[in-house]
């Protein structure tokens, strides 16, 4: 392969327990892991990899708040300012009546916003094809990627370490990220 890009070593793991132990022992050897890909959520993996907490919930809150404001603006604009009408003997600004719609809009925008943000952040945008180290990570294999330039240890040693931690396969991969 003579693609341009960074050099990676990719370990393939069959089982999430082996993977979790492998992450600990690889990190103990002082190797920096670039990223781990798995076909399903593995419990406790984010602690092992030392992930920071996702900021997705902040995005959800912001989108929800946006929905709340939009809904209230829409209803007050239509029912109170633009064309005031007496409905059911209520005020022109019957806030309790607005609450169900406000609630729905808050939930709708926070859900859509959260899913959209998640897609963009996880490289699942509709344009372009997401880059994968090994396509089998979308099926039944766990994939651990280690960037060579990020580590001082040479590639042969990393490969033997990955093999001893239970990787079923260890490959070289050049990725243009």
């Amino acid at each position, binding site marked *: 392969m003579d693609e341009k890009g960074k050099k990676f070593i990719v370990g393939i793991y069959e089982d999430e327990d082996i993977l979790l132990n492998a992450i600990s022992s690889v990190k103990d050897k002082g190797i920096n892991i670039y990223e781990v890909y798995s076909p399903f959520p593995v419990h406790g993996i984010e602690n092992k990899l030392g992930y920071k907490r996702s900021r997705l919930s902040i995005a959800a809150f912001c989108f929800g708040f946006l929905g709340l404001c939009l809904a209230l603006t829409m209803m007050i604009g239509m029912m109170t300012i633009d064309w005031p009408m007496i409905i059911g003997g209520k005020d022109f600004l019957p806030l309790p*009546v607005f609450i169900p719609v406000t609630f729905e809009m808050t939930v709708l925008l926070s859900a859509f916003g959260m899913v959209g943000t998640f897609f963009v952040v996880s490289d699942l945008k509709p344009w372009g094809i997401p880059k994968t180290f090994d396509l089998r990570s979308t099926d039944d294999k766990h994939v651990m990627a280690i960037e060579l330039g990020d580590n001082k240890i040479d590639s042969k040693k990393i490969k033997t370490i990955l093999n001893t931690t239970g990787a079923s396969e260890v490959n070289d991969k050049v990725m243009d990220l």
Partner: protein
Amino acid sequence: MKEIFDFNSNLKKNILYLFVGGVILSLIGLYQIINSGHSHEEVSQAVGTYNSGDGHSGYHWYHRLYSNLWINVVYFLGISISAIFFVAIQYVSQSGWSAGILRVPLAIGRWLLPGSILMLIVFAITNHDVFHWTHEYLYDKLDPRYDYVIDGKKAYLNLPFFLGRMVFFLGMWYLFYALILKHVAREDKLGGTESWQKLFTISTVFVVFYAFTQSVAAWDWVLSIDTHWFSTMFGWYVFASWWVSALALITYIIIILRDNGYLTFVNHSVLHDLGKYVFAFSVFWTYIWFSQFLLIYYANIPEETIYFVERLDSDIYFPFFIVNLILNFFFPFLFLMTRASKRFTRFLKIACPVVLFGHFIDFYLMITPGILKSNGGFGFLEIGLLLVFLSAFLFVILKGLTKLPLVAKNHPMLDESLHHDI
């Protein structure tokens, strides 16, 4: 880790101070009320027409005492039975995460027996003054005070049936509680899964039984005070209020025990789950509250809106109406929204007492306007009696905590609780 809760003399002394403080505040409150007595006996316009013809406008200072007694009786009894319900649903759902903390709600359930006895006593003292429908003349067609609407409810709202229901519910709830306690104690002694399976069966029956009886109890004990008015949401509304108070109390007691060296295995994930319970059911309470409010507000039928007119068009109750929503919805919703606030005790230690007090206000708003009309108020008497009941309640549940080990060492799912991780 300490296995048995030590109810030492220091704690008892603090509870005694609380009790004495409550008694003093109540006496000051009573003194104030007796002296200011008949100055504002007039009944407001809305309430006056609503109550016309019953000839029951005479307000006495002891009505306020009675209404407060009834609020506290219902509030604390509800927390206690809801804590037992919490234990039951953990067994029904075969939950593992809560196995290590179940002794705390079990101890809160100890109030059920003294609370039930208190309820019967308070009802015997206060019946005519709290429950308008108990007056005989309302059902007498020849009496000028005859009430057509209440007479129509006679088949349900009559003293023998009411008292029968009350005794039956309290008795059955206590029976289930005693059964749960018995098998929990047996599990401690014998081990194995036999007791756990028995508890599953008992809890299943109890949950179904409680689902029906709790609603009826809410109609009887709270809704029937506003005799003319009714709401089909009311059973749920009272349930939500009791339930979230019980959850807040369970969480708070666990945190305090943890700070004092008990239940040290309770990790952040268990606290997180308890916090989620408080957060979620605060929102659930709001949902129920709002569903009741919105329908009545929108339909605008006079015999229904009177309930909210009494509360919204009143100088006394309107502030509490707002405070109720702030304490029970806006505050827990915004304060417990983030993950960190549910995982660290610092936040939960603020949120739980606020929610507990908020739901006391909620019961105050459910009960007081129906009894006292425009003669209500919130002062030393309310706070004092709350403290008196709180001290008795705390004494009973802390004493209850000493009766069993704090950890169910033979619970088959204890290990899951110790390693709960979310």
